[in-house]
């Protein structure tokens, strides 16, 4: 069944005809790639379970029927999905889309209160949650009553014997299966019920979305955005489908349809892995290797040993962590052909080290939750290290100054984006939407420059910029220099109030214990590479830095920490 399809370069035209909605991606791939493995879950000890493209399509049909017929949900109702990477995720996500419902991705590590607030904001009617985190349900439900709770196991759809052993270990050894305090259904039963309903009532799942327009809401993807308050970015079917199509053009002939194996260590509830791994790679017939928990990073060892991974997606933190693992550095996977980075700035030193180990250029892209997410991308044919590449097809970018005017050539300005992947707005937040979307242009809050060949380079976040005696200091630049020091694991830079200069540069540094430099030595190192005003005035050593769910360093937490400590 494989390799009968033309490569992605021929993709978008074909996509337009056959793929209209998110559910069509599952249908299309099932038709072309059939019995080939679509998703494999791989546990740290090497145990695995897998489902074919056909199975994913059919099971997600079952789940869609269950949601509509058994639970009686209506088109447009919100369904939250709160599970780590595993076989449940694609079944449930495609199922929700096929049922014409709106998917609300929720971080499994949220506290009960955070869950409750998000569920209330989205006004969800049903929730699919992994059993391990079900103990937070009672608190969440006290904030927003959840009509239907569906509990899924990590080992869902794995071979019976294996899932039995996993259940035993979870129950009696890890004791990680809490009591569920609410009435609920089991995911496995839901699928069986959905299949029975489909058969007995002769349901065509396709009919659920027959009248759905591509620009209708498909997903609420929550983000702190530019203001820090969590809000739901409204992404439509066409936002996501367009982004998958755009990525197809960018990748050109690099993806071999039906022959790739992509490592999915990033959580699928995050927009990057959702679009890139679950939608894009699935659309081109790749097998997704789903890692439920990449922490510690040695959890990836068996996945690399037992599966011939050809592509991987990751964030700077993940590539850096792999570089520092002896088993990866000593014996990098020979099958690996490509790597894609996003979610946060990829540091040049990390990319270079990764290339030295694997021989592969990490292709960096840039995007936001609000843009489904990819805005710019480096393809291998059009690649420049240290830049976020060029705009995706059909995507316009302008760099604007504080007054909203286009900046001059080579000058830094805030990125404004227009394209088919730009969200419809924030859910129930007209003011935030108005502040972010202006005449169809999305204001990103990111500062960038562009070179003569159209490669964009992120300078920094607008709000993270440090103003030292009237000079702009971009923390990323200083962090890159600090991280290049052999004694430094990672660094974060923020501005702190400083009488005379207005602000001063303050660096938080995590040291490698064996060759720890002194603050003086670090400053010397910075002076060799940076203008004097950019050199950190204050250097603090830390055991670790606060990070977001994809490993982005949270500068705002460092700022808050300093403020709390009184400067």
């Amino acid at each position, binding site marked *: 069944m494989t390799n009968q399809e033309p490569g992605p370069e021929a993709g978008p035209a074909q996509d337009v005809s056959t793929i209209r909605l998110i559910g069509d991606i599952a249908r299309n791939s099932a038709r072309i790639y059939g019995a080939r493995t679509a998703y494999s879950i791989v*546990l740290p*000890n*090497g*145990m*695995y379970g897998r489902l074919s493209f056909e199975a994913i399509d059919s099971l997600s049909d079952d789940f869609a029927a269950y949601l509509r017929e058994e639970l009686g949900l209506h088109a447009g109702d919100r369904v939250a999905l709160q599970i*780590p990477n595993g076989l449940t995720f694609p079944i449930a996500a495609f199922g929700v889309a096929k049922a014409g419902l709106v998917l609300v991705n929720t*971080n*499994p*590590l949220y506290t009960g209160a955070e869950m409750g607030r998000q569920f209330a904001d989205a006004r969800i009617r049903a929730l699919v949650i992994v059993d391990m985190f079900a103990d937070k349900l009672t608190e969440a439900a006290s904030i927003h009553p959840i009509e239907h709770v569906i509990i899924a196991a990590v080992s869902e759809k794995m*071979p019976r*014997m*294996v899932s039995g*052993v996993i259940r035993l270990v979870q129950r009696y050894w890890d004791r990680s299966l809490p009591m569920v305090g609410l009435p609920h259904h089991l995911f496995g039963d839901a699928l069986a019920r959905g299949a029975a309903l489909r058969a007995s009532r002769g349901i065509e799942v396709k009919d659920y979305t027959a009248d759905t327009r591509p620009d209708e809401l498909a997903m609420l993807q929550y983000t702190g955005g530019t203001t820090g308050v969590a809000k739901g970015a409204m992404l439509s079917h066409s936002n996501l489908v367009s982004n998958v199509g755009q990525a197809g053009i960018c990748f050109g002939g690099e993806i071999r349809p039906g022959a790739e194996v992509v490592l999915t260590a*990033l*959580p699928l509830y995050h927009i990057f892995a959702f679009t890139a791994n679950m939608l894009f790679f699935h659309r081109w017939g790749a097998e997704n290797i789903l890692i*439920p*928990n*990449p*922490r*510690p*990073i*040695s959890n990836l060892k*068996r996945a690399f*040993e*037992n599966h011939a991974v050809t592509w991987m997606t990751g964030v700077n*933190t*993940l590539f850096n*962590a792999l570089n*520092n*693992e*002896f088993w990866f550095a*000593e*014996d990098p996977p020979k099958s690996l052909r490509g790597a894609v980075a996003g979610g946060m700035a990829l540091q040049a030193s990390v990319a270079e080290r990764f290339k030295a180990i694997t021989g592969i250029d990490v292709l960096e892209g840039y995007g936001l939750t609000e843009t489904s997410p990819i805005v710019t991308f480096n393809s291998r044919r059009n690649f420049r290290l240290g830049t976020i590449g060029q705009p995706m097809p059909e995507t316009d970018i302008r760099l604007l100054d504080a007054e909203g005017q286009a900046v001059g050539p080579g000058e830094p300005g805030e990125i404004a984006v227009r394209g088919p992947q730009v969200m419809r707005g924030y859910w129930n937040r007209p003011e935030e939407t108005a502040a972010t979307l202006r005449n169809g242009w999305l204001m990103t809050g990111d500062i960038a420059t562009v070179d003569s060949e159209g490669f964009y380079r992120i300078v920094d976040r607008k709000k993270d910029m440090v103003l030292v005696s009237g000079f702009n200091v971009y923390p990323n630049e200083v962090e890159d220099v600090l991280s290049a020091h052999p004694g430094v694991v990672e660094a974060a830079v923020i501005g702190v109030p400083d009488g005379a200069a207005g602000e001063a540069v303050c660096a938080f540094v995590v040291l490698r214990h064996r060759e720890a430099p002194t603050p003086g030595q670090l400053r010397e190192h910075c002076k060799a590479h940076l203008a004097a005003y950019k050199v950190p005035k204050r250097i603090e050593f830390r*055991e*670790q830095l606060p*990070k*977001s*769910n*994809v*490993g982005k360093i949270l500068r705002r937490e460092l700022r808050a920490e300093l403020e709390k400590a009184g400067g």
Partner: protein
Amino acid sequence: MVGAFEQAVLAAMIFVIMLGMGASLTPRDFVLALKRPYGMLIGLVSQYGFMPLIGLILALTLPVSDPIKIGLLIMGCMPGGTTSNIFTYFSRGNLALSVLMTVNSTIVGILAIPLLIVTYVAILTATGSISLVVPAQNIIITLILLLVPVAIGMAIRRWNANIGALVELVGSALGLVFIILLLVTWVPRNWQFLLETPGWVFFGAIGLGVFGFLFGYLFSTMLKLHPRNARTIALETGIQNGPLAIAIVAFTFTGPLQNVQQAVMAVPALYSLFIVITSAMLTIWFRRANAAEEQKIPDALL
């Protein structure tokens, strides 16, 4: 000291345990270890350089009877034992390196063991000498119990990763049972013997293993081996093949020497008991060190 039936049960257990160890390995692990023979070389120097010397020094300095001195020497000249692989597995060390070192030292031991023991006994007693019998069947059994199940385990994993992981799980669980079983059954049966043995003999039998760990670790750390390999070599150096020592003593001290057999045997017997205890403690410590070295990835990256 151990009946034939018990020996068979223990051998069967080791077979299953090693099957599980094998299922945690891939051929590439061995290729990598072989590509860097440095670690194995260091291991061999530790095994047949340090350990016999530690045995000799203990024998020369401790106020113990002659049979005990000879026992210490023999114990020091043994190759690495299979249990070192189990402890290496649990301490998250380099299992492929451990297996290769055990195989290495066992094969090299065919020549090195008699040579070392005869030479050192000559040094120890100045005049006396013994004609040593190294029972070939024990060496062959050691190698078979090591290599065959490891190879089968690796094949199982390659054939089906799920079955491989299950075999590994069973093997490692059995490994724990095995260690506890050794301790629980040994102590009560030999209680009288433990009470009658003088303190210095304890010191020698326990010290041999502990100094072995120490020298093996310091030596490989000094030569800048990766901490994981240094820990592996430490365990491999300190843990000797106890059953082989017992067999050698049993075969060598017969006829006119029969009367000292029991006394010589005290060292391997005591060593075998306490090495399980000290290795278990060291393994817990190594595991912690390993966990502390593990890279910290943000909590929320689930």
